[in-house]
């Protein structure tokens, strides 16, 4: 995500518009990628992202092969490199990779020759399509012209929660900053990365209440208990008391503020149930937009687009 500049992001969002339109049709299918083969390689479970990518590829008439670590030769001890080379030999135009280890898509992009690599989330590192769909959702809410990315300049974005272990946060920060938004991180110090040197952010706060009134977009991150972050805060209750977006806190947001959550939500921990149902919460829109954004990314990589065929 660090490598995507503002014009490239604007292009992705523009192309997403056309595919969002496709999604609203009675028969939401176009021949854009007919004859192309796309593999999803999910070495880490993810129902949502996988379904979203596979739906995106199928709506563009691509052939989709689905590979998951649990049912594959990986279980038999095959190395990652051998797996990738096998898949490339079968003949893929793109591989969409999710891995629990940071950096795997970047390594795979070095190993393959004639195959686009799409990062569907790697470790704590990046989840670019999630950030792109967040931008698309915000742009949709803000309105604006054909491009709409100018509306991000000076937009006050607050990202709350487990930033340390979050690939979503790393991609969001890069994406918002590329478009000129001012990003503030809110978390207990233990859930921030060890160093923020060189991060394109406007500030850091440990006091959510203090930043709500000056927030245009608030993005809540899941407390990633399975990554051991439980130990980074004493109790979930204490975390929620300080950092959950409760109904009371939601009222302190400006009326036009947008509430985002990459999902899956843990209601009651980082977001109150009633807040998730507010009209300003665009969580369901995010999911729907995810398919259109991923169609755009695949189209730009495999169609006649000009995005670099590197890990996005």
């Amino acid at each position: 995500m660090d490598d995507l500049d503002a014009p490239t992001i604007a292009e992705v969002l523009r192309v997403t518009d056309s595919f969002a339109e496709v999604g609203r049709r009675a028969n939401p299918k176009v021949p854009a990628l007919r004859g192309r083969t796309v593999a999803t390689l999910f070495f880490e479970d993810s129902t949502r992202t996988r379904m979203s990518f596979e739906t995106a590829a199928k709506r563009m008439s691509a052939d989709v092969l689905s590979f998951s670590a649990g049912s594959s030769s990986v279980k038999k001890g095959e190395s990652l490199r051998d797996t990738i080379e096998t898949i490339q030999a079968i003949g893929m135009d793109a591989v969409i990779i999710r891995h629990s280890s940071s950096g795997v898509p970047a390594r795979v992009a070095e190993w393959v020759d004639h195959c686009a690599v799409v990062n569907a989330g790697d470790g704590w590192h990046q989840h670019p399509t999630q950030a792109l769909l967040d931008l698309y959702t915000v742009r949709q809410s803000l309105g604006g012209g054909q491009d709409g990315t100018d509306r991000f300049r000076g937009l006050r974005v607050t990202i709350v929660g487990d930033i340390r272990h979050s690939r979503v946060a790393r991609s969001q920060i890069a994406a918002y900053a590329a478009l000129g938004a001012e990003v503030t991180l809110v978390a207990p110090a233990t859930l921030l990365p060890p160093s923020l040197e060189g991060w394109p952010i406007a500030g850091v706060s440990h006091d959510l209440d203090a930043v709500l009134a000056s927030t245009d977009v608030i993005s809540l991150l899941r407390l990633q208990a399975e990554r051991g972050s439980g130990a980074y805060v004493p109790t979930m209750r204490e975390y929620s008391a300080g950092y959950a977006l409760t109904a009371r806190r939601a009222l302190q947001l400006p009326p036009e503020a947008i509430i985002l959550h990459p999902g899956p939500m843990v209601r009651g921990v980082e977001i109150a149930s009633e807040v998730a149902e507010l009209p300003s919460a665009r969580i369901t829109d995010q999911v729907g937009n995810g398919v259109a954004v991923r169609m755009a990314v695949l189209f730009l990589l495999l169609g006649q687009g000009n995005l670099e065929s590197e890990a996005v």
Partner: protein
Amino acid sequence: MSTTPELLVRGGTVVDATGERRADVRVVDGRVVEVAEGLEAPSGATVLDAGGCIVAPGLVDLHTHLREPGREEAETIETGTRAAALGGFTAVVAMPNTDPPLDSAESVRNVFALAEGAMAQVAVAGAITVGRAGERLAPMAELAALGVRLFTDDGDGVQSAGLMRRALQYATGLGVTLGQHCEDRSLAAGGTMHEGAWSSRLGLPGMPSEAEEVMVARDIALARATGGRVHFLHLSTAGSLDLVRRARADGVPVTAEVAPHHFTLTDGCAAGYDPVFKVNPPLRPQDDVDAVKAALADGTADAIATDHAPHAPELKDLPFDQAPPGMLGLQTAFALATTELDLPLARILALLSWQPAAIAGLGPDHGGTQGGPVAPGSVANLCVVDPAATWTVDPTALASRSRNTPYAGRTLTGRVRHTVLAGEPVVLDAEAQR
């Protein structure tokens, strides 16, 4: 060695702990018999051209993972000592994290037996604790009786301060040194690289500098209290080296080594997630690299040790966080020192030869044959190095069974030309002779 023919090393400049002089070196029956200018080669003698070169005591590596027994697919004593000889080393200290570990007289005897006929002397570092598990002391006296002078659980630090204190007390009675791999597990566990700006950006779990420094500080206190000698392995942070600097000023019996990769590479090398740059302790930021160089210049660091750690290629093709740490070092150590350090060659040779020989108990002061002056009567363990020759590192051309050098493609200045092991020219013109 009695069968090796007479040898004349001609035309070089001899550099050892006693100084520097233009001299030829004549070797008979494995021993130096004459060191003087203008020696004639007797008929039948092998002549080693040392024109433009430095003739020095063979290099001594305090920190080599030979992998045999247990991980012969990564390295064997044969391939590891061939790499050592090509790197100018005539002795290596084999680390005990083999399978089985070197924590018993039987396993140490086995390594000595396997090392017979090797291309470098193989000394052994014994484990401090049984199985390197950090729970109870290994039979250190039995190992010391076999000649083991250095003990370490390398790969792991001894986590328990109480056990380390007891080990140091016990060591004082044996006259041996304890080497510590300083890494506090409660701070470093799960870490894959230096914790800092790069790890944060790359989303990789980090090991903070403090993980090393708290154990250095702890062991300095324990050395001070017990009088036991601690040798700090591969120190990598400015803070660790400052602690050692102060401890030595106070007369605490500690020594320290640093590894070539810690004065040549930074944590930013991990940006491409290539595990060839994964090592333990991890590559650090530039400030630490500068501190390591400063410690070599001011004498805080006593030795350059390679931490030669071969790993089979398939293991280095794993994702960064799953790949094992370690990099090759034997064939590049000398050239990296001459290329990257702004030190006189005699200082570099001290750091690579006679100072580590003394720490390992392999020098003449301990009845050994390594690192001693190039003088009549001494065993001819020599290296002949050309400080001006340049060469480019080609992983496929290295003698190791593994390929995990982080210096592929790098051009270095300074090359080992010949290596003589007890009078036998095991490397001639940068070619291994067996």
